[in-house]
């Protein structure tokens, strides 16, 4: 725990000073700290690049016995460029559990069982991540079976078809939730060219066609399951020497590929868009208000400026939240999502209303909040509190080897180095209230906007009324 303690001291120095400043007092200027003091990712890490393009990131941590292994592949639903192939990256993730040349699924399960491992995988727009958590003595064996499936995956068409049904089962279990449908509709409406127009799960018609696409699955593997798309992350009770030796041993012979996808760019939006979902059974009404917004960047301030604004304008401590959720109690939650994506993403505010009659009012309140910050400057204290919140939030989340690996994986998919986190938080520290207002001005324009509503039966008339401009 030595590292942890030290880290915490370094991490929070600037934030603490600010957080203790009294309300109403003139904002204290944060003492300039050295770059090192301000690092949000406090662990010592090493990066090793193999000649085939594979990258290994090793993070020794003081939590004993366990090792978290995350294998991050830079492919996701963003890479599903052919028509009819939405949902494929996620489906392919399932196929990675269907056996390889030297390890059958049963052998794999047996090895992981004896390792007491927790093992899984997930897919998002931009990445597919395979992860295991297990006792350190099993690292060699787990790396061996991972190396094998990344290089020699092998499954027959019948197993492929069976797995396609499990994916349909996954769609089915999600389908009971209206929020899933709202999100699907929002993506489809806001994006018309770019692959973000479909969710990671994919369109149902494409999921139903998956059993017929065996050959495409093999192509997908050949394209993306290559060392140059992959970063191996090892966190926990481990040394760099051991992690590197095992990576060379089990992944060293992996052949580099040559495929580079052309992801279609989304043209500029020229008009506000709206859509409505009629839900067949009882539900409370939902509303999502989204604006086209920037991609992840650790260099350009716009993305991180809007991240800060997201918490200030729409977080649980925002005026909007306090009015709609706590005082007027017209909605039961206000949520904001604005993920770090490779390509420009939506800045989305979503809410669930208690009564459909309140839809025009709530919608106008949300739109007015967006408008407000295109002209109004955020108080310095609020901005400083928000930065403090981000730092503490991050520090509090990293409470185990797995949590560290889980927090790091998205950034490795974006930039292949933990350093991007440090750059991002340093960039956030340089953002001024004027930067935030200017970013809001650039992105929160009517012609960047998409609104989607969902309600049972007859919500449409009220839902579609135009709020203020």
């Amino acid at each position: 725990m030595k590292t942890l303690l030290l880290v915490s001291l370094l991490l929070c120095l600037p934030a603490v000073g600010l957080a203790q400043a009294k309300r109403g007092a003139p904002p204290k200027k944060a003492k300039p700290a050295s770059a090192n003091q301000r690092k949000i990712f406090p662990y010592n890490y090493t990066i090793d690049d193999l000649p085939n393009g594979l990258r290994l990131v090793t993070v020794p941590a003081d939590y004993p016995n366990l090792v978290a292994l995350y294998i991050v592949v830079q492919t996701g639903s963003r890479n599903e460029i052919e028509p009819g192939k939405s949902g494929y990256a996620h489906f392919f993730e399932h196929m990675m559990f269907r056996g390889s040349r030297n390890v059958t699924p049963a052998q794999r399960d047996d090895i992981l069982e004896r390792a007491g491992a927790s093992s899984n995988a997930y897919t998002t727009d931009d990445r597919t991540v395979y992860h295991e958590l297990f006792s350190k003595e099993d690292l060699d064996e787990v790396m061996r079976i991972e190396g094998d499936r990344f290089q020699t995956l092998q499954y027959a068409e019948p197993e492929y078809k069976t797995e396609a049904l499990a994916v349909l089962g996954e769609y089915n279990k999600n389908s009971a939730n209206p929020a899933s449908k709202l999100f699907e509709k929002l993506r489809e409406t806001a994006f018309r060219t770019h692959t973000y127009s479909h969710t990671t799960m994919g369109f149902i018609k494409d999921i139903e066609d998956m059993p017929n696409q065996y050959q495409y699955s093999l192509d997908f593997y050949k394209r993306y399951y290559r060392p140059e798309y992959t970063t191996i992350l090892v966190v926990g009770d481990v040394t760099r020497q051991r992690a590197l030796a095992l990576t060379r041993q089990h992944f060293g012979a992996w052949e580099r590929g040559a495929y580079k996808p052309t992801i279609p760019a989304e043209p500029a939006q020229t008009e506000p868009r709206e859509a409505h979902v009629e839900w067949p059974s009882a539900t409370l009404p939902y509303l999502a208000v989204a604006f086209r917004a920037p991609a992840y960047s650790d260099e350009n301030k716009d993305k991180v400026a809007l991240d800060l604004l997201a918490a200030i304008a729409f977080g649980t401590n925002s005026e909007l939240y306090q009015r709609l959720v706590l005082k007027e109690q017209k909605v039961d939650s206000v949520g904001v999502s604005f993920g770090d994506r490779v390509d420009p993403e939506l800045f989305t505010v979503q809410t669930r209303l208690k009564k459909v009659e309140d839809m025009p009012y709530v919608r106008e309140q949300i739109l007015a909040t967006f408008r407000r910050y295109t002209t109004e400057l955020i108080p310095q204290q609020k901005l400083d509190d928000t930065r403090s919140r981000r730092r503490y939030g991050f520090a509090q989340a990293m409470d185990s080897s797995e949590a560290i690996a889980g927090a790091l994986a998205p950034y490795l998919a974006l930039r292949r180095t933990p350093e991007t986190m440090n750059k991002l938080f340093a960039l956030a520290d340089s953002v001024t209230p004027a930067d935030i207002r200017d970013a809001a001005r650039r992105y929160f324009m009517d012609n960047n906007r998409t609104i989607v509503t969902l309600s049972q039966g007859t919500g449409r008339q009220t839902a579609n009324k135009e709020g203020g401009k």
Partner: protein
Amino acid sequence: MRRIFFITLVLSFALSTLTAYAQRKSPRSKPRERIKGPVLMHTAADPDAVLLPNRSPLITFRILFMTGAADDPAGKEGLAALTASLVSGGGTRELPFEKIQEAFYPMAASFGSQVDKEMTVFTGTTHADNLSRYYALISRMILDPGFREDDFTRIKTNLINYLKVSLREGNDEELGKEQLYNNIYAGHPYGHHNVGSLSALERITLADVREFYRAHYTQANMVLGLAGGYPATFPAKVKADFAKLPAGTRTPSNFFTPKLELGTHIDIIKRETRSTAISLGFPIDVTRADKDWPALAVVVSYFGQHRSSNSYLYQRLREARGLNYGDYAYIEYFPGGMFQFEPDPNLARQQQIFQIWIRPVPPEQGHFVLRAALYEYDKLVRDGLSREAFEATREFLSKFSNILTATQDAQLGYALDSRYYEIGDFNGYMRDQLSRLTLEDVNAAIKKYLATNRMRIVVVTKDAEGLRDAILANKPSPMTYNSPKPQEIMDEDKIIEVYPINVRAEQVRITPVEQVFR
């Protein structure tokens, strides 16, 4: 397994494990054979605290009250949940809730509550830098709650909407599981959802909440859980502060194992939905405190380890046949399993059920899959585990407990539960018990606890009448696949497609979804 991460568009309606219920009944009929663990986490000097000091910069609180939904008065089901939610999600007498949120904001702090049948726990984590400010807020929230009218209205509406909308109309799997519990514990203190029932929630007043708080938030009921890098003097300060609570008395309750009517009973919830969710199970008179618990833990891990492809059921139903997304089994309450991989602690209970969770299947395969689940269950009871399966599962579990307790918060939660069950440190306890366990113990435990002629089944589906009629007529439900299957599967399907479910008409009920949680 293989979860998919959408953007977090999903609004956070999952009040996850809030819940509910109770009246006291006669003590259990036979004394249990308990295991006393070697190391108890609380010391004689501190009988009402579980303290796990370490050098982490984070400090975790789990402030536990031995009260819960089983203490809800009749007709006021949901009172324990509403009280806890008002304490953790409402203002204090001094500060309105928005001021508390404002103070939490720069610390990235939060404070939450979880209510189960016998336990209410308040949880939060802070960085050591903020300990005094954070503690000042949460201690006031518990010791001096505001119980304001506007907070009450907001939280009550949230709880009602959680049952009425989020659960009833947005999550068929959880709906089926909770209805299974409600059916098994009908007429029992555990017999309603932890969040309550809709009609009772409507009736609860702020005066009821005050009274519940006064009666149950007492020193006698409280156990302080603390972990992390807090100062050595901190626990004493907390204890002194919490001495402001009324002393109270702790009257231990004994909750009986429900004696269900003989035979299989099926409840089909009729709802407009594209798939069919299935849960089945029955009560077992075994908890973590009992000698046979580790044996049953091996059985369910083998048969249906949560969200693991190593689960036997998963292999047979999903992996070999592609029927759905996963199939698992449990001997402890595990709400929100679709959202998480490890169970939450502090859901300790005197009474548990054995449960099989079949994730949604296409409606036309619902009858076949229900038969398959019963077929596999019968096979488990008949054949038990093989030596190979036993040894592999035992090895898995003795290491897996490290994963269950990988975070400080989990360590603290498990330690509190170990205190409740009077076993030692959970990891040590599991390793020790598992190392002594034999295949014969495990297979004997299956015969003793898992053989039932009182199975309870809940199905959520659209064509409730069609399914009911097919079940009552024992109509064959042949399976077809989109790809060739091994002969062994085809042969087994021939048995499953006509596998009898012996129920009479009065044992199959259709419940319109609007009536659930009334």
